[in-house]
């Protein structure tokens, strides 16, 4: 890409190695009306900037009020998720932490063409600070046609990737591929069963309506994500479903997630959701 060569070292540059400095600097530039796209090398290292993200970026517009200032121009990109050998500090998916912060938008794309559209939307359209989490396992493995011209994909709304009537599977990012494989296997093994697959894409604020509408139809839900289970995104989805679709539920909401532990080097394969676990969860909810 050679962005620095094309656009100059004033616009594309190195910073000192300091996450709180990177994000604090970008917030200041955004608050003066610029559109900084900051990068944190790994999501695992975004915590030194947690204070700047939570107390500053997220609250800037709110505390400025009628002065009209905000950090809305800010986008913070961070590679996230497992790669098989990332161990504790190159595997994390902290989207639930950032989804607990009003004022931040948390987005995770699943593919190259979606990544481009969502990122352009985060930079050009969304006048709110965006945490843009990129599943790094897809950096080189996902290949598809990506239009060369500029286009955007709205950060609002979930996307139904596949329609079905028997179970709703809700996920985002890399596990969507795992879900697709598990769904293909289920539909092959259980005749007449069709599964609906929803990509949240925006993890916060998120599209409750699309999920609830789907569950109203299917009555069964499996939520899949890499991050650990306790207070993960699946907890919010499950609670929303029991609140908004209680009378339609025919089975408890299943959560297939990372176990509530760290990502130790040797255990990656057994920690993150795989096709077997997703297959089994769908089977369990069908059998309930």
């Amino acid at each position, binding site marked *: 890409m050679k962005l620095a060569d094309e656009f100059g070292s004033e616009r594309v540059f190195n910073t000192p190695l300091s996450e709180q400095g*990177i994000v604090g*600097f970008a917030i200041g530039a955004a608050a003066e009306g610029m559109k900084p796209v900051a990068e944190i090398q790994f999501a695992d290292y975004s915590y030194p900037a947690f204070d700047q993200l939570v107390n*500053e970026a997220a609250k800037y*517009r*709110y*505390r400025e009020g009628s002065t009209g200032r905000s950090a809305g121009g800010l986008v913070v990109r961070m590679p996230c998720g497992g790669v098989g050998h990332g161990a504790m500090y190159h595997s994390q998916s902290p989207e639930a932490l950032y989804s607990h912060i*009003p004022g931040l938008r948390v987005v995770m794309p699943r593919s190259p063409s979606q990544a481009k559209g969502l990122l352009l939307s985060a930079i050009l359209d969304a006048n709110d600070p965006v945490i843009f989490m990129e599943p790094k396992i897809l950096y080189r493995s996902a290949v598809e046609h990506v239009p060369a011209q500029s286009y955007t994909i709205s950060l609002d709304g979930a996307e139904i990737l596949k329609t079905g009537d028997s179970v709703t599977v809700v996920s985002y990012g890399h596990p969507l591929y795992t879900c697709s494989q598990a769904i293909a296997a289920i539909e092959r093994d259980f005749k007449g069963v069709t599964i609906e697959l929803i990509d949240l894409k925006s993890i916060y604020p998120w599209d409750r309506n699309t999920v609830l509408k789907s569950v109203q139809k299917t009555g069964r839900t499996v939520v899949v994500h890499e991050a650990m289970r306790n207070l993960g995104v699946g907890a919010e989805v499950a609670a929303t479903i029991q609140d908004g679709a209680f009378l339609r539920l025919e089975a408890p909401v299943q959560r297939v997630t990372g176990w509530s532990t760290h990502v130790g080097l040797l255990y990656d394969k057994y920690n993150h959701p795989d096709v077997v676990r997703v297959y089994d969860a769908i089977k369990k909810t069908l059998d309930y």
Partner: protein
Amino acid sequence: MSFERPHERPAIPTYRIMDSEGVIVDPANKPDVPSEEIVRWYKTMLQVSIMDVIMFEAQRQGRISFYMVSAGEEGIAVGSASALIPEDVVFSQYREPGVFAYRGFTLKDFMSQLFANKYDTSKGRNPPVHYGSSRLNMHTISSTLATQIPHAAGAAYAVKMRGLQDPTLPKRVVACYFGEGAASEGDFHAALNIASTRHCPVIYICRNNGFAISTPTLEQYSGDGIASRGVGYGIDTIRVDGNDIFAVRQATLKAREMALEDGGKPILIEAMSYRVSHHSTSDDSFAYRAKVEVEQWKRRDNPITRLRKWLEGQGLWNDQMEQEERSKLRKEVLKEFSAAENEKQPPLVSMWTDMYEELTDEAKTQIKELRDIIERYPDEYDLSAFEGGIESLK
């Protein structure tokens, strides 16, 4: 082999123009500012100190929830503010109302924020003393210490880029204030380093007043104050006498000029003063320092009395003018005080607005939920002070 030994190095000297008796130390350094302007500085400092006394008392009476005075540090604020142009962007910590007052924050602006009424720009979201103004290019204060220091670096970079894109704009800098305690935060380190490597036109002004709440500087750092650190980041640095408004102004003027040189660079000013007051209305400072020490400081040296002595020496001020000005300012403050106190509060829906650019579906649902609760338990909630009452929740 030779180790650098910090304590064997001479301390960075403190720049001073006027001594504690209001006498210019070096006649070559005489202030070249019209005397009306200097009288304006004096009146601005006086206004802040009078507002401080009244509002401190108002907090004691429970009429506002919180207050912080800036006694002893008015000279740093007004002196530095006088060296900036109105287009310069300012980030402050919380003890710089003199900068706001000098740049044109009115008594109505101060009181609206302190009483969190419907004219408060933050719509009743911030605690008292967290001022902000877009008209005056002053970012709204947040309680989190030192977070504004990297913001100032980024804002200075933005200001510089804007200047490159549009050369007809006035050359601008960013001024950023913080205390010596805040300088212990990681954000101080991150900010000075990135401001230096990215060549940002920002003036960092540290108010070293001896205390971070109850922590004396002896327990804050063991180097030569904050100034000695600037050099380590490759930043041109000066230490000034913060009670000497002429020295603060002169150092800031020069810093501003230097910050715009060489394509932009940061400058650090450490202004030495003494926090005469309690840290805030929630603090009784005599629990950790002797009353006699504070009294001595008040008597011996103070930026307001120092400038007053100079003005009197020039025949620009006298006891009668002092009395008249004090009584005029007091009346003005009290007038805006009661006006602000009797204003309505912002609409209750302001609890949710401005969180995102637009209200989210989740927020809309929760607004409805709160309205429903209030409608079903009307005797439990008093919305009469809020502009529009329950009608703002729809």
